[in-house]
């Protein structure tokens, strides 16, 4: 293949993605683009996002059609310098051989379980770098909340993403539903998998659990990167928490899930179906209620970890969507005296999903 002709292909976001649908082209043929420019919107069964240019140049051909589903790696567009003659592009397309479809067997089962004092915990493992990252989701989430991050960072790090007790496919119940009890789960998880120390990445309540783990065992936590984190102030959108626990149908839960994102359009039917599947497992509503009544007692966050965490001296990056409707961005601003703070404009509570590229760069920078 000519190295002057750059291919734009259907991306693979997360290991389960097999195909994606083009919903809209954001550029037209002839447009000049720079690296990072958004080219097209793609919708998968999990989420909608934009495909960004990885090369600069002129969009010479758009091949992917709107409202059409393409397998991962399908050629969607051609970017080349204006100086490359059309004939060369035509010749490239004429001789273009689509990449072979990956066999299903090649997809290694990334999920495993480990039995801890609290019960069985499911986790996903990606990559095999020297440095270890442990991803801890928030209230009502699971390890798949990090799909864009784990897939984007697996080439550099050893990555673990777990389902907390009461969540995903882990045990539905707690020994201790407080932040301290959850931190004990993280430490016993590290013990069980012989992880001496790690960089913790947490979202929302998971950010507070990361900080609490660092406070309890400072030698075992190298850094904390937290998105829309709890633990830095008293406010929590308790109507969201109660709505999430109490809703049992698509119509009921959708408005609550829309509060998580800056762009409510990101809440896909598949996302709602996945969450309802989780919420309909036996003991889930009771577990979530117990957790909320402990961590968000009386509609306020039970613990402010600023002073105790600051005392550990462990480096922290706090990333917060400016438009977070669950925990206000002002909480992360309050961490400026000891943490690197990034407030992302046009971003809601799910900053790690909504701004995955920036998120991954910040995670990698903090973990190095």
């Amino acid at each position, binding site marked *: 293949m000519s190295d002057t002709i750059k291919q734009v292909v259907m991306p693979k976001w997360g290991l389960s993605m097999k195909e994606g649908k083009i919903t809209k082209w954001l550029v037209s043929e002839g447009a000049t683009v720079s690296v990072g420019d958004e080219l097209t919107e793609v919708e998968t069964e999990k989420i909608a996002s934009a495909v960004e240019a990885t090369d600069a140049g002129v969009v010479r051909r758009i091949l992917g059609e709107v*409202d*059409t*589903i393409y397998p991962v790696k399908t050629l969607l567009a051609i970017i080349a310098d204006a100086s490359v003659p059309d004939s060369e592009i035509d010749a490239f397309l004429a001789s273009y051989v689509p990449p072979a479809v990956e066999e299903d067997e090649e997809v290694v*089962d990334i*999920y*495993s*379980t480990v039995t801890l004092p609290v019960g069985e915990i*499911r986790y996903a493992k990606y990559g095999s770098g020297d440095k270890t990252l442990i991803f801890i989701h928030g209230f009502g989430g699971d390890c798949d909340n990090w799909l864009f991050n784990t897939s984007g960072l697996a080439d550099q790090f050893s990555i673990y993403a777990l389902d907390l007790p009461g969540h995903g*496919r882990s045990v*539905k119940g707690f020994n201790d539903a407080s932040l301290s009890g959850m931190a004990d789960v993280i430490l016993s998880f590290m013990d069980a998998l012989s992880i001496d120390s790690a960089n913790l990445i947490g979202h929302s309540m998971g950010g507070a659990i990361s900080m609490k783990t660092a406070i309890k065992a400072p030698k075992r936590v190298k850094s904390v990167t937290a998105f829309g984190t709890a633990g830095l102030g008293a406010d929590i959108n308790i109507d969201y928490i109660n709505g999430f626990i109490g809703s*049992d*149908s*698509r119509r009921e839960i959708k408005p609550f899930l829309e509060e998580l994102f800056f762009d409510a359009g990101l809440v896909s*039917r598949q996302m709602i*179906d996945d969450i309802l*599947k989780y919420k*309909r*497992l*036996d003991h889930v509503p009771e577990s979530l209620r117990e957790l909320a009544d402990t961590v968000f007692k009386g509609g306020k966050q039970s613990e402010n970890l600023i002073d105790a965490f600051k005392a550990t001296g462990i480096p922290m990056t706090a990333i917060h969507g400016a438009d977070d409707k669950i925990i206000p961005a002002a909480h992360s601003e309050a961490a400026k005296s000891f943490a690197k703070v990034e407030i992302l404009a046009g971003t809601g509570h799910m900053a790690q999903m909504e701004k995955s590229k920036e998120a991954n760069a910040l995670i990698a920078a903090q973990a190095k």
Partner: protein
Amino acid sequence: MARNLSMKDAINEALDLEMRRDPTVIIMGEDIAGGAGAQGEEDAWGGVLGVTKGLIGKYGANRVMDTPLSESAYIGAAVGAAACGLRPVAELMFLDFMGVCFDQIFNQAAKFKYMFGGKAQTPVVIRGMVGGGFRAAAQHSQMLTPLFTHIPGLKVVCPSNAYDAKGLLIQSIRDNDPVIFCEHKNLYASMADVPAESYTIPFGEAAIPREGKHVTIVAYGLMVHRALEAAETLSKEKIDVEVVDLRTLSPIDLDTIIESVEKTGHLVAVDEANPRCSIAADVIASVTEHAFKALKSAPKAITAPHTPVPFTPVLEDLYIPSAERIADAVRKQLK
């Protein structure tokens, strides 16, 4: 963690989990014992297709009751036991056999709550096989769902996949009303990711296994797969089909159907049952009544013909609505 389970095993797991959780759950039926690890015939069965295999070893003959070949007797016993506090799951093998126990189901189980002023409850599940394509001839291949759906007091469930089968069966067992649980025999081997834990799916909530904006196809059971196959073919012709899987026929999720038709303006209702008074006819009537203005074309029903299910394979294959027939109907809607 994809935990792939067949629909047959998902049904077995639902029975197992509910029997473990609730000692009042019992199962009864013809040849349902088996798979206990004993010698010879005792081990051979566990349901004619092995759906209840192994349960007798775990729960014993008092809770896994192998009955005489008399549907009228044991279905009546199950209904009576339900009224007296147990939660029986009676297997009718082929639901075609329901004819000999209509009174027990239609006149007794379905009526108790009403006749006793709401003071009686009848938490019985009658499960069994439905549908064609199994080369089992006219008396073992029918889709009698419309018959059951017609009766007030019965709930009617017909899952299209292993995940739904497990959640809907657990819901059926926990439900306090009689439920007719229809298992398509040609879906027993179909696989899906099924969590090991117990979970429920509420009745009256349709699923949308494929979203689209040009035409709505409403289906249930095996026909969901035919509809999805048609949708796949049509997507290559730039026709974007939405498939609604009813999951439960009584109650029925009209809101989701109407919401979809209001988006697409076109409706094809697919049903493996015979055409007269079918679920397809019911869906079309309801949409016409409640959302007539949303329709841009006359709704179309794709059903089996008004004949018994043929035994000869060539005719049986013609009898059951195919993906091609469904795709043709969709194309005509858009002309």
